[in-house]
């Protein structure tokens, strides 16, 4: 088997114990609920008998290990329980709201990569210039900014003072109809339907929250790009390439940048973890109807099934993303397969 595909398979095998650990932890979180879950699910008006009945239905009278088996078999059927607020199954709630969150997260990550990577490269190739200083200021300020505060500042400046941004209420203004559901990403759906007016409306709503998230993720990416580029530029193969008389362009982008990209891709995994957390705050600020604001609403009314479903879904999403990132790493690393 080719070393590249063997490495990818090995990496996928590594994800299995992590997924098992995630399931165990989310099971423990469900069972650590304060008070008696059966009494909670039965509602305030329930008497002894109905609580006991619910306890039996939920399998709470069984030993912990058996409960875990029930939990896993429910999970394997995609049953995350029922949300008390919406009355729907948690899985369908999450599925309906996930595209909104993903659209926001991906737009933000694309935006911040598009700014941070060139910024880091420029800062590394021109140390001591204004680009370098700008990079340093952005990096230090970026890690200190609370995301929710950045969002509120942006709303104040662009909505209240400048009046250019639409009101920070959700994904689409009331004057537009949401585009026909294909992928759930409004930008893609509207483009597919050829409805450019709605597309523009959705884009306008997306700009501020995506910028907020992007400002937050800018710092680690720019910092890592700069450091990786600096260390790549000082390595022996760059000196050799320069000595061999290659053009500056070829040295920078053909050799240094490709090697600097590897640690940057690894950092993206960590950045994603922070983004998924920050997403919750940003969705709250902009009333974005994603899974983050769903979880917050559920938390406020103690809708535990929904919260635990959200935590599990986020963890699985993150594990999957890390897997994808590591596979991408294996694909772009020029050294794998050479040995």
């Amino acid at each position, binding site marked *: 088997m080719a070393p590249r595909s063997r490495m990818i398979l090995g990496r996928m095998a590594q994800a299995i*114990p*992590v997924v098992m*650990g*995630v399931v*165990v*932890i*989310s099971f423990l*979180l*469900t069972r*650590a*609920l*304060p008070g008696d879950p059966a009494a909670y699910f039965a509602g305030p008006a329930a008497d002894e008998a109905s609580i006991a009945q619910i306890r039996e239905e939920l399998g709470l009278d069984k030993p912990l290990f058996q409960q875990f088996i029930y939990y896993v078999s429910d999970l394997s059927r995609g049953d995350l329980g029922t949300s008390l607020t919406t009355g729907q199954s948690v899985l369908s709630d999450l599925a309906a709201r996930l595209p909104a969150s993903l659209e926001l997260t991906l737009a933000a990550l694309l935006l911040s990569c598009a700014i941070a990577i060139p910024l880091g490269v420029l800062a590394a190739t021109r140390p001591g210039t204004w680009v370098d200083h700008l990079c340093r200021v952005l990096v*230090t*300020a970026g*890690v*200190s*900014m*609370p*995301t*929710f*505060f950045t969002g*509120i*500042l942006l*709303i*104040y400046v662009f*909505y*209240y003072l400048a009046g250019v941004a639409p*009101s*920070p209420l959700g994904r689409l203004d009331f004057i537009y109809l949401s585009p026909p559901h294909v992928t759930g990403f409004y930008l893609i759906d509207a483009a597919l339907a050829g409805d450019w007016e709605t597309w523009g409306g959705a884009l306008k709503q997306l700009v501020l929250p995506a910028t907020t998230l992007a400002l937050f993720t800018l710092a680690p990416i720019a910092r890592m790009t700069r*450091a990786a580029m600096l260390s790549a530029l000082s390595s022996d193969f760059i000196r050799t390439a320069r000595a061999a008389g290659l053009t500056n362009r070829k040295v920078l982008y053909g050799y240094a940048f490709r090697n600097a990209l590897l640690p940057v891709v690894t950092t993206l995994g960590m950045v*994603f*973890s*922070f983004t*998924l*957390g*920050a997403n*919750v*705050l940003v969705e*709250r*600020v902009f009333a974005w109807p994603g899974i983050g604001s769903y*979880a*917050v609403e559920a*938390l*406020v009314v*103690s809708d*535990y099934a929904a*919260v*635990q479903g*959200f*935590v599990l879904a*986020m*963890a699985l999403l*993150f*594990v999957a993303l*890390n897997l994808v990132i590591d596979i991408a790493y294996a694909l772009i690393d020029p050294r794998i397969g050479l040995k």
Partner: protein
Amino acid sequence: MAEMTASSSQDRSQKGDTSLGHIAYVLRDNPVTMLAFGMLAFFLGCAFFGPALVPYDPLATNAARALEPPSWDHWFGTDNLGRDVFSRVIVATRLDLTISVAAVALSFVIGSVLGAAAGYWGGWLDAVLNRCLDTIMAFPLFVLAMGVLAALGNTVENIIYATAIINIPFYARLVRAEVNIRRNAGFAQAAKLAGNSDIRVLAFHIFPNALPPMMVQVSLNLGWAILNAAGLSFIGLGVRPPTPEWGIMVAEGANFIVSGEWWLAVFPGLWLMLAVFTFNLLGDGLRDIVDPRKRT
């Protein structure tokens, strides 16, 4: 004999001079770190003496003077109930710092014990710990904190526990690595041969070597812990109104920002940012002192 003690005390004072001198040298080189220490002193002052010094009672409402913009009477303006925003921001310092310091201290202790044990004895202990840490890190950390809070219940102490749990992996991994590379070092073996028990060698001979990088981690983590705690109370977890706390004040002020009353959210937000910024600067500065190679 007298000569010997004199020379050894001179040695000691010289040694003290050089490490102090080194710190002074690095600090002179980096005035930003000095600034960070100054800001830290300011925040600590706010936390200790703030509640006694503020001009207004942070909980006293005054409907006649609600939603006033900043003025000489009210430096940061008043909120929708007429409470003085400046007093609330200063008084909140104590709660925010307490939450983050307690959380970081807790994860420091637990992480050190776990990491030191795993690094020193290795074997199955190490393997099990690594698996557990991997699993914690597999969650988006803020989301895990939300889940822990939902499970433990919605109180200030539980914010501390949740923040501590998500910080433990960083400390445990750091200590494990530092202990692991030294467990067979000459000085550790000498200490063992001199009759010290494993625990004693680990605690008094090996572990202190991990402290300098740990201090850097603590400082960076404190800023992050404040952000986390404020984020959790921003979405309505843990701290309950009317308690003054930066995150919750920003959340309350957010409702007024669309109608232009900016001071409600901006001042607590700025204070929060400044506190995080201080700890981050401090962390970078400490790293310069501890590890000159990483200076940028």
